[in-house]
């Protein structure tokens, strides 16, 4: 790589053609760059020239980057950004300057096909809105299972992550229904280390997904994450969980898994679920 290209790539991030939960390495690398950059070097560019679309999960990823930018007093400039994205709140806000973290609702977004919200506590209304918006186009069982998964994720974040905010999304996207929750709080491995001892972050994450595992001292449970696997299996969905250095992708239709240690740590937990939709849904 030429030296000038190297310098360009250090301070500039070329976004992929689809900002979604498929490729997230660029986002985690950027967050780490922002956190570790010295005070004098906290200016970054997001290069949008290749971006064709932003999925509901993509909005949540951008919101996590936004939080990091504000907390680290960094600055982001969007370059080569297509006009159709400029009106999306998180895209606009990511290059504004804030003296402190604003309410997470500043990045809320709703369109015909998606719902995206930032919250600081449990959001009962999100489920109601999901039902109002999508119950005409989704099978009843799928709506229920999405509720179940999001409730579990919300509760885990509020109870365990110590994050002061989280981002929740759902929406119809390219013949699938996507739902998930992202937070930048204490990661699953960091939480699990308090009660268990494992070889690496992958082992911590695998253990967290097993039935019976709990880090609660009061109101022990240990069913939530394991239980919603069964619901994803039922719909032959896909699940991606990323936390600290661990990433697990489960594809229930093909019964394949992809597990790997990340090059850069995620300072939080991101959960993405996808459900295939049949024709006419």
């Amino acid at each position: 790589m030429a030296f000038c290209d190297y310098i360009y790539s250090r301070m500039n991030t070329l976004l992929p053609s689809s900002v979604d939960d498929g490729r997230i390495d660029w986002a985690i690398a950027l967050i780490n760059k922002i956190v570790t950059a010295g005070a004098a070097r906290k200016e970054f560019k997001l290069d949008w020239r290749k971006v064709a679309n932003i999925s509901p999960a993509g909005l949540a990823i951008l919101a996590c980057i936004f939080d990091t930018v504000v907390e680290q007093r960094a600055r982001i400039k969007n370059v080569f950004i297509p006009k159709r994205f400029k009106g999306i709140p998180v895209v606009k806000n990511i290059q504004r300057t804030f003296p402190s973290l604003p309410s997470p609702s500043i990045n809320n977004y709703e369109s015909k096909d998606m719902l995206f919200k930032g919250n600081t506590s449990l959001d009962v209304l999100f489920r109601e809105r999901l039902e109002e918006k999508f119950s005409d186009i989704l099978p009843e069982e799928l709506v229920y299972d999405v509720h179940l998964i999001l409730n579990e994720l919300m509760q885990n974040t509020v109870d365990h992550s110590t994050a002061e905010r989280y981002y929740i999304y759902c929406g119809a996207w390219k013949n699938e229904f996507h739902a998930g929750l992202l937070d930048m709080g204490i990661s699953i491995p960091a939480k699990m280390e308090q009660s268990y001892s494992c070889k690496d972050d992958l082992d911590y994450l695998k253990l967290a997904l097993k039935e019976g595992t709990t880090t609660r001292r009061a109101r022990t449970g240990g069913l939530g994450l394991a239980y919603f696997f069964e619901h994803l299996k039922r719909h032959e969905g896909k699940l991606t969980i990323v936390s600290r250095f661990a990433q697990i992708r489960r594809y229930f239709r093909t019964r394949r898994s992809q597990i790997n240690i990340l090059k850069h740590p995620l300072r939080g937990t991101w959960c993405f679920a996808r459900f295939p939709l049949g024709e006419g849904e």
Partner: protein
Amino acid sequence: MKRIVLKKEFKDDHITRAAGERLRHAILAITNAGDKIEIDFDGLKIASTSFLDEGFAKLADEGWTFDKLASFVTLKNIYPMDKEILDDLFSRRASRSSKKRR
């Protein structure tokens, strides 16, 4: 028979373990006094393993059986998928509890 309308008394939280625990304590307070209780879901979809586990399934940890649950607690207007999950969670805990007792 005492009555709890979930939509009214748990409208702000029918998701968390804390809320489920409150419900279970209410059930136990009434049934330990020898009374029965009706829990009216009134069309509310719970869709929370945590709430159903803490609220109902953990009664199995206290020695409750399905028969006792059916006998002392009437579940009115419960959404069928919530009932499926509740039964499954209760059955898992009941099975674990009976293994521990052996």
